[in-house]
C-alpha cells in the first residue's frame, strides 16, 4: 500500500493579529533537514519556529538512501528506530558491465554497530516521523502554509516576511536557518549564487510499484542490454516500491522523456514485463555546486540550500544531516549564551570541507558515468574492459562512492600514535556494543570524556563515560595501547585523545572548542 498523503492543517499564527516576541531561531523549510535541525535544537533545550510553504510531506520518494551516520543522527533525535523498522536494510552493492558483474562492495563488513550501513526509505516517511516527533516535542512551533517572501539582516538578528492563506506577518529572529532546498528562495533573495559545475547529463528517475523478489542490494549497470549504451540503477524501497534511474544523455528532450508513455516502455525493458504501476517520476541534471560560505551573519544555510551534488553517492540528504549534526550544538550554545557567535564559523569551515569532499567524489562518479568524448571515454571504457580480466580494475569502476562522514581537519588536536585511524580526531566516534546498550546512545549529545581502561582524572568538570575494554572497544579505540581518554564533542566527533592526561589539559581543550578556537 503506497503512502497516503494527509495534509497538515493551517493554523493562523499569532503574528497575523499582533507582533510576536522575538524568536531565538526561525527555520525555513520543513523537509528532513529543517525538521532535524529543529529537533536537534530541541534536544539542547532551544525553541524554534519552523515555516513551510507547503502542507504535505515530500511528494515523491526523493532522498531514499539513509547512511549509517544519518541513522545515528536520526536516532539521537528520536526517529532512528522507526526508520530502520520501516526501511529496507542493505549493505551490498553490485555493479554490472553489460550482463556481467564486475564489482561489488559491502559497506558494513563488521558487526557490533547499532545502525546498519544503509536503509532505503522514501523521504516522505522520514518527514512523516520527524513531523510527529516535532509536534510532540513542545519546543517546536511548526507552521504549514507559511511562505517566506523576504529575509533581511538586522543589527542583532534577522527579520522574516511571511505570507499565509490569511495574510502577511513578520517575525524577528536571532538566527534564521535556510533549510529551503536546492532551489532555496532565501539564497535567491539574498543574491547569493552557487559555484561549481553543472554537468551535461540527464537522468530519468522513476518509482514503480510491483511485486518482485529482487534482493535488498543496490544494482548498477554500465551499458546494459536493456538500456543500450547508457547506465541504470535499481534500488528497493519499502511497500514494493522500486527506484529506477536511467541515463538519458544530454541530447534528449526532458519534457518529452518525462511523459509516462515514454517512461513505461523504458521500464518494461528493465524489469522484463509490464506488470507495474508508475508511482512517481522526474528528470534531473547533474550538478556539483555550493555556496562559498554557509554562514551569512544571522542567516545560516543548511543542506541542499548550501550545496548540491549529483546523485549515486547518497551524499545529498546525508550531507545535509551532517550539516545539522555540526550546527545544532553550536547554535544552541550561542543562543543560550554559553558560546560566542564565532563558533558558528567552525560550522562553516567543517561543512564546506565536508561539502567539498562530497562534491569531489560525486564529480568523479559523474565523469565515470558520463565521460566526455576522447580520453575520458577511452579510459572509462578501458577500465570496464579490464574489470572482467584484472582484479585491480574492478574497484576503479565508479558507479558512485557511497556517503561516509568526512573526517574534519582538526589540526593541532591532541592525538596518540598507534591508536586506530578510524577514531582519530575529526572522525565520528565509532559505535560499539556496551552491555545491553550502544556506545553512541550512551554518549548522546553532550561534550563527554570517554575513559577507556582507566578512570577519568579526578575533579574533571566534564561529563564522564567510563567503559570496559571489550574486543570492539579495543579494536575501535585502543589499537596497540591499553588505555585511552577520548574527548567527544556533542556531535559525537572525536575532538582529542590521550593515553593519559591531567584534568586541566582536558578541560582546556574543551574550553577551546566552546570558544571556537578548536
Amino acid at each position, binding site marked *: 500500500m503506497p503512502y497516503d498523503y494527509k495534509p497538515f492543517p493551517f493554523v493562523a499564527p499569532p503574528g497575523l493579529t499582533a507582533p510576536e516576541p522575538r524568536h531565538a531561531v526561525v527555520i525555513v523549510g520543513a523537509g528532513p533537514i529543517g525538521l532535524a535541525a529543529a529537533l536537534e535544537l530541541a534536544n539542547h533545550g532551544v525553541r524554534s519556529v519552523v515555516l513551510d510553504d507547503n502542507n504535505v510531506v515530500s511528494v515523491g520518494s526523493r532522498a531514499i538512501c539513509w547512511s549509517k551516520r544519518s541513522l545515528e543522527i536520526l536516532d539521537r533525535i528520536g526517529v532512528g528506530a522507526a526508520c530502520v523498522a520501516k526501511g529496507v536494510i542493505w549493505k551490498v552493492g553490485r555493479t554490472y558491465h*553489460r550482463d*556481467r558483474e564486475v564489482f561489488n562492495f559491502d559497506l558494513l563488513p563488521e558487526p557490533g554497530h547499532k545502525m546498519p550501513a544503509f536503509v532505503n526509505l522514501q523521504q516522505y516517511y522520514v518527514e512523516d516521523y520527524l513531523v510527529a516527533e516535532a509536534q510532540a516535542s513542545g519546543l517546536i512551533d511548526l507552521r504549514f502554509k507559511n511562505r517566506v517572501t523576504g529575509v533581511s539582516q538586522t543589527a542583532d538578528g534577522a527579520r522574516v516576511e511571511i505570507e499565509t492563506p490569511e495574510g502577511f506577518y513578520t517575525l524577528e529572529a536571532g538566527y534564521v536557518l535556510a533549510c529551503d532546498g536546492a532551489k532555496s528562495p532565501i539564497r535567491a533573495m539574498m543574491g547569493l549564487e552557487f559555484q561549481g559545475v553543472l554537468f551535461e547529463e540527464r537522468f530519468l528517475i522513476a518509482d514503480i510499484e510491483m511485486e518482485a523478489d529482487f534482493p535488498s542490494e543496490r544494482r548498477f549497470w554500465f551499458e546494459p542490454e536493456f538500456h543500450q549504451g547508457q547506465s541504470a540503477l535499481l534500488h528497493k524501497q519499502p511497500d514494493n516500491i522500486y527506484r529506477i534511474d536511467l541515463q538519458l544523455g544530454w541530447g534528449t528532450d526532458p519534457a518529452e522523456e518525462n511523459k509516462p508513455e515514454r517512461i513505461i516502455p523504458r521500464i518494461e525493458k528493465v524489469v522484463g514485463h509490464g506488470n507495474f504501476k508508475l508511482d512517481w517520476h522526474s528528470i534531473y541534471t547533474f550538478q556539483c555546486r555550493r555556496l562559498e560560505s554557509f554562514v551569512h551573519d544571522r542567516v545560516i544555510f543548511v543542506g541542499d540550500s548550501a550545496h548540491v551534488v549529483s546523485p549515486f553517492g547518497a551524499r545529498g540528504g546525508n550531507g545535509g544531516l551532517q550539516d545539522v549534526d555540526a550546527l545544532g550544538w553550536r547554535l544552541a550554545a550561542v543562543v543560550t549564551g554559553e558560546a560566542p557567535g564565532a563558533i558558528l564559523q567552525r560550522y562553516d569551515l567543517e561543512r564546506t570541507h565536508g561539502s567539498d569532499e562530497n562534491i569531489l*567524489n560525486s564529480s*568523479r562518479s559523474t*565523469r*565515470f558515468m558520463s565521460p566526455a568524448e*576522447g*580520453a*575520458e571515454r*577511452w*579510459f572509462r571504457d578501458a*577500465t570496464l*574492459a*579490464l574489470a*572482467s*580480466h*584484472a*582484479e*585491480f580494475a574492478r*574497484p*576503479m569502476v*565508479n558507479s558512485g*562512492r557511497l556517503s561516509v562522514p568526512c573526517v574534519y581537519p582538526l589540526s593541532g588536536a591532541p592525538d596518540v600514535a598507534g591508536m586506530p585511524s578510524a577514531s582519530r580526531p575529526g572522525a565520528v566516534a565509532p559505535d560499539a556494543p556496551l552491555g545491553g546498550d550502544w556506545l553512541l546512545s550512551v554518549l548522546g549529545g553532550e561534550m563527554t570524556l570517554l575513559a577507556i581502561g582507566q578512570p577519568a582524572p579526578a575533579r574533571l568538570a566534564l561529563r564522564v563515560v567510563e567503559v570496559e575494554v571489550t574486543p570492539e572497544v579495543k579494536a575501535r579505540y585502543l589499537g596497540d595501547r591499553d588505555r585511552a581518554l577520548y574527548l567527544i564533542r556533542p556531535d559525537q566527533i572525536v575532538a582529542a585523545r590521550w593515553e593519559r592526561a591531567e584534568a586541566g589539559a582536558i578541560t582546556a581543550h574543551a574550553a577551546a572548542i566552546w570558544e571556537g578556537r578548536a
Partner: protein
Amino acid sequence: MSLVTRRNLNDQDAAYAALIGAHKGLSEAESIALNARLILILMNHIGDPAVIGEALALATASGARPAG
C-alpha cells in the same frame, strides 16, 4: 617478479582523476601522444621485460570482445 593485477593503488579514484585531468583540453592527437609518452615512461620504470610482456598480453586479451 610477475605482473601485479591485484589492487596496488591506495587512492584509485585520485589516481584516475589525475590521469583524466592530464588530458583535459587536449585534442585527440595530443591525447594519443600523451598516452604514448606515459606508457614509455611507465615501461621504463617497470624495467622487467617479462612483466612488460605480461602487461601487453593482458591489454591485448582484455580488448577482445567478451565471449557471450
